[in-house]
């Protein structure tokens, strides 16, 4: 690499004829931040128009959102609590997406992971707590992994569309959960809300020190970082990205595409299953219909907004957790319906998807274009 690049047609705003390599690097990196942030601002501006149209003040709305989601330590903890399950749920979408697969049935893996974890906890009642919690985690991950891994296997070996099959399997998973918690796994004392036997307190996962957010948040962050390392820094991740780019090329290169597909979908499902286990061990204390709380579906939104980058999932989940947290205050203070924040989420989703088309188009972010004549 040379320090400077000779160029004839440099744009005027950059003045000099050549550019330091560092500037080029910053420009290229900046694109990944500036475009999503600009999209966020555009989405919020569009939402302001919507709020004006229903006769409320956008200024008051954003002030309330800030207060409800981010403006105090209590609000931040509120947002983080809501973000915790979204991290793992989003990985269930983002990992297969790197292979070019659109998996939207993470909800199924979450509920089955929760049921498997609760069943493991019941079976091992009386054993030391770290063993029970470990086995619950493994059981939840196994259940979720098998469920979404099966989606990957159906895709690769039987050419079944993974989007449709994962969604349909989520319905089956919820029905299976209902069957199990209303039948063989039901605690007879749970009359009007069928649930599994409550876990003993020693088998519950508590809050992290200094905050009222359970350990699931830390687990989710670690899972995101590990997933990023897997995708960006290992040969499996490299192979997966090649297969995601062009399956034929990957096969010609001799990559084991089948193992990659099943492995990545299995891992994705395992993360979702772990989210279900955490929901049981840290929040609910037993498995019941409350497990199907829609985290799997919000996870889709998070993964797409993060452009399937596991590291970006962390701030995006926090942002959506905050929007969710502030939704309550918006209802209470501004007398707007709950659907208000859904409109905001929807607008952000559309604008950010649309912004995908802008990557590589702006001169400022693309040093290759600087050198071309105008």
């Amino acid at each position: 690499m040379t320090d400077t690049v000779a160029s004839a047609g440099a744009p005027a705003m950059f003045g000099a004829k050549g550019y330091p390599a560092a500037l080029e690097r910053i420009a290229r990196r900046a694109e990944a931040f500036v475009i999503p942030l600009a999209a966020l601002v555009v989405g919020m501006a569009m939402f302001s128009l919507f709020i004006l149209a229903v006769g409320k003040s956008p200024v008051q709305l954003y002030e309330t959102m800030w207060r409800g989601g981010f403006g105090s330590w209590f609000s931040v903890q509120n947002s983080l609590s809501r973000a915790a399950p979204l991290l793992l749920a989003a990985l269930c979408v983002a990992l297969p997406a790197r292979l070019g697969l659109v998996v939207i049935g993470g909800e199924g893996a979450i509920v089955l992971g929760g049921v498997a974890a609760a069943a493991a906890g019941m079976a091992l009642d009386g054993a030391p707590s770290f063993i029970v919690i470990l086995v619950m985690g493994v059981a939840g991950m196994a259940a979720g992994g098998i469920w979404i891994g099966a989606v990957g296997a159906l895709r690769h070996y039987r050419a079944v569309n993974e989007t449709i099959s994962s969604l349909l399997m989520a319905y089956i998973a919820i029905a299976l959960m209902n069957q199990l918690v209303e039948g063989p796994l039901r605690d007879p004392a749970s009359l009007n809300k069928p649930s599994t036997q409550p876990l003993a307190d020693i088998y519950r996962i508590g809050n992290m020190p200094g905050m009222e957010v359970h350990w699931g948040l830390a687990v989710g962050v670690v899972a995101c970082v590990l997933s990023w390392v897997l995708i960006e820094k290992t040969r499996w991740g490299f192979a997966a990205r090649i297969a995601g780019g062009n399956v034929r090329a990957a096969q010609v290169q001799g990559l084991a595409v089948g193992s990659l597909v099943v492995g990545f979908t299995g891992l994705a499902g395992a993360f979702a299953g772990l989210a279900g286990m955490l929901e049981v061990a840290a929040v609910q204390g037993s498995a019941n219909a409350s497990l199907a709380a829609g985290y799997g579906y919000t996870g889709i939104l998070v993964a797409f907004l993060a452009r399937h980058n596991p590291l970006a999932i962390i701030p995006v989940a926090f942002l959506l957790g905050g929007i969710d947290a502030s939704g309550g205050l918006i209802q209470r203070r501004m007398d707007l319906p709950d659907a208000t924040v859904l409109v905001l989420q929807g607008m952000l989703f559309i604008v950010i998807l649309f912004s995908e088309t802008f990557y590589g188009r702006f001169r400022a972010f693309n040093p290759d274009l600087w050198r071309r004549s105008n």
Partner: protein
Amino acid sequence: MTARFTLNRRELLKTSAAGAALGLASASFPIGRAFAASAAVGFIYVGPKDDYGYNQAHAEGAAALKGIEGLSIVEEENVPETVDVQKTMESMINLDGASLIFPTSFGYFDPHMLAMCAKFPDVQFRHCGGMWNKDKHPMNAGSYFGYIGMGQYLNGVVAGHTSKTKKLGFVAAKPIPQVLLNINSFLLGARSVDPTITCQVIFTGEWSLAVKEAEATNALVDQGIDVVTCHVDSPKVVVETAAGRGAFVCGYHANQSPLAPEKYLTGAEWNWAKVYKMFVDDLIAGKPLPNFTRGGLADGFVKMSPLGPAVSEPARKQFDATLAEMTKGGFSVIKGPLKNNKGGVVATESQAFAETAIELESMDYLVEGVVGSTA
């Protein structure tokens, strides 16, 4: 520390933080000042406030409190039974200063409300569902609930008079005791008119699943059923679908007559306004709130929708007479001789269960005449 300062460091921090928070709240949020000195009451709903059902019934109760001087009502809808509801309660306490909270969904109780009761011993929590037990649960928690079985019995009386095919339909969420009691009561009310009447039940498996509710209603009407009722969170889909197919409907939870004015016969409604007023009166008077309160039709916890235009004169007469008998007291819906629909005896000749009977709380059968299965 000098003798003048009796505050320890923790208390000082707490006080100054509270002062700062109060200052911030009143400076940036002028409405805050208006209720700073009075009481705020929080209501939390699991679904939309305007669902023509379970949540609307509670929201109507909350609305009845608006306008009471010194009282502010804060409400949040569509709050799932997860950590979300815990944070909502906390937010109502921290940001709105709520001193009494009504988490209205059954699944909010354990572990969510109990966790908040432990965390905020000075705040009162009253939960809809009748789960509070003084041996197990804290004193700042409590339960309120209604016995609505007689309401479904009255629905059945009107349905029995109205049906020409003598076949009734029931769209139900889950085969749990409360729902089974409603199904059985509806059929028994109808059989008090004509003992040959049957009632087909379809369980959808979920409290709120519009597609299945519509499918179930259509399936019932396809079988020649001409009066339909339900026990799901929002009866809107069932009512509109059934009326659209020409069947009559009996309502549940709230008044659904605006959805089908011609086809709506009557309905079993909650009258939460009475219960919420009772709690709030005590709160304002500074009296301790009751921890456990339950009541039925006679106590005003439950009411009937006004009879619709399709209700015949004989139906109206029997409805009024039965209602009068229930209001008087001593009426039993589940009484012998009574068999379940598998032939087993559930009440012998001499047995009669009052609506408060503990045996009814674990009901696991459908009575003879109900077509369907609990599992």
